[in-house]
């Protein structure tokens, strides 16, 4: 009897949490199917019509002559550009930390760990001040280069090679006369596919969602990534800002649609890579 009561109570908590996690997302998906007025008057989880999505889409894409597409393109350029630089720098670095020996290796590894655990937001303002000093503010590089610095990626690659590629194998290759470059490209890289995927996933998701640095560094709407663009849409939405929003067609359904579009790339990645994501969170620290 006691067990049944306990189980019921536990199930109830799980159910409340389920509603807490799912309801906002569900509401968001349904919001663009309704008109702004329906959101207030109709039942929250009702479905409006597909036609309304079309209307919201038209309003949204005509906002400042389709600036939405510029924002999405900027986000893609920043996130993919940074991803490429991250892979080019972090894979050889992680490999070298794991399988070669050089002066300062341990120091570099410790610094990498500390910077990786430290919240990245702590460095944003100092990075801004530095970029300002060297007059890089407002350029695409002022986003791509800081995004490319990704110690977590280096650590993931390091752990991967340290645990999956035996040193003896490399010694054998060296004795056989292979150059270091050949060892890296012919032995290490072909083995690295899983960790490349992992680093790419985390780097892309993190940079796509990043708001703080672009918000500080980019002065013009033309250069905004979608996250900063959403902030501008928000200040143009009458329900949140009656003064600035008056006369514009951006209302709650349009804003909801913009949110869905902004998270779509990450959401798709999430849906298909729960396993990847979790292994990465666990790889942040070794188990043994």
């Amino acid at each position, binding site marked *: 009897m006691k067990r049944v009561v306990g189980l019921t109570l536990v199930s109830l908590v799980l159910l409340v949490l389920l509603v807490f996690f799912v309801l906002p997302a569900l509401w968001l998906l349904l919001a663009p199917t309704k008109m702004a007025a329906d959101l207030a008057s109709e039942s929250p989880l009702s479905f409006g019509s597909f036609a309304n999505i079309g209307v919201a889409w038209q309003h949204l894409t005509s906002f400042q002559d389709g600036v939405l597409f510029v924002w999405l393109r900027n986000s893609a350029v920043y996130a993919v550009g940074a991803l490429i630089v991250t892979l080019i*720098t972090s894979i050889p670095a992680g490999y070298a930390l794991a399988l*070669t020996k*050089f002066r300062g290796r341990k120091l570099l590894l410790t610094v990498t760990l500390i910077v990786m655990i430290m919240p990245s937001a702590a460095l944003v303002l100092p990075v801004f001040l530095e970029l300002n000093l060297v007059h890089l503010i407002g350029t695409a590089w002022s986003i791509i280069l800081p995004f490319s610095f990704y110690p977590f990626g280096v650590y993931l690659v390091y752990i991967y090679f340290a645990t999956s590629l035996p040193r003896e194998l490399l010694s054998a290759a060296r004795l056989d006369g292979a150059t270091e470059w050949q060892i890296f490209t012919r032995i290490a890289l072909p083995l690295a596919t899983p960790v490349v995927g992992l680093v790419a996933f985390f780097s892309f998701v993190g940079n796509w969602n990043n708001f703080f640095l672009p918000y500080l560094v980019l002065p013009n709407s033309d250069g905004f990534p979608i996250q900063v663009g959403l902030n501008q849409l928000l200040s143009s939405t009458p329900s949140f800002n009656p003064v600035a929003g008056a006369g514009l067609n951006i209302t709650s359904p349009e804003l909801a649609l913009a949110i869905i579009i902004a998270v779509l790339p990450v959401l798709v990645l999430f849906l298909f890579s729960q396993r990847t994501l979790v292994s990465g969170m666990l790889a942040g620290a070794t188990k043994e």
Partner: protein
Amino acid sequence: MTALDTPVVVPARRATVRRAREGGLSGPLFVSGYVVLLLAFGVLPTLYAVYLAFTNVRGQFTGLNQFLRVIQDYRFWPAFGNILVYLVFWLLLIVVLTVGVAIVLRSRMPAPVSAALRFLYYIPGALAGVASVLVWLFMLDPSVSPVNWLLNSLGLTTFAEVLAPGHLSLIFALIAFWTGAGGWIVVMYGALNNIPQEVLEAARMDGAGPWRMALHIQIPMIRKWIVYMVILAFAAGTQLFVEPQLLQTASLGRVSPTWSPNQLAYSYAFQHGDFNGAAAISLVLLVIGLAGAGLLVTRSGLFKVDES
């Protein structure tokens, strides 16, 4: 795997050639690209912030004056106070609920239910950042919220009432929990899975019920992961910026523009053009972040710096 076999099967011909440093010069070369980025966007900004924080506009050394000045700013302590209250809510929520839920999902739910719930709980993680704040603006606006009956029953009938200063810490904790908890539940679940079955079996033989099992076996055995989560959540929590900044935009200035320390630093740099003061506040935050990270790296034994 064919690439692996080739070098192994060929017999070694010059066994006497051994290099003192494995990999020779390749190590430093391979890390060089990353080291450049580390210097440019990790070390140099920190040093520059230190320089700014200890000097004035004309570059004269001013000792601790910048720090004294920002600490005496009437907005300094309230901002840290706000963050502190937020951290208490957020850490309590995340520790009690992620660990509790993970244990329940691991030990008391049938496997398919457990898998489905873990997946659904973690979906909001995809909406981290700006999107999560905007979604919660809708959830908290009584005129459109699907739970406006709940808000009303708490006596909150307008958006302004919901965003009363006393509520903000809890609101930010809820948003953080919404996007972050699912991932941690999965991590805790994974850690629970690593507890050897024999240990649990032995406890059951001794007559331990689910409560005793959780308190005396499961929680102690995943303690490392709980500490890991708490330190990460604490360090990230101190940096809060996006959430209060967006809420400030959405509330027509009813929310203070310097609610969190990072916002205060932002305001020093952008509203007052006072980079020295901004750097001083940033350094305070940086030191907190560094302390948390240093503690975790050197004390927790979770990270391997060298293969033994």
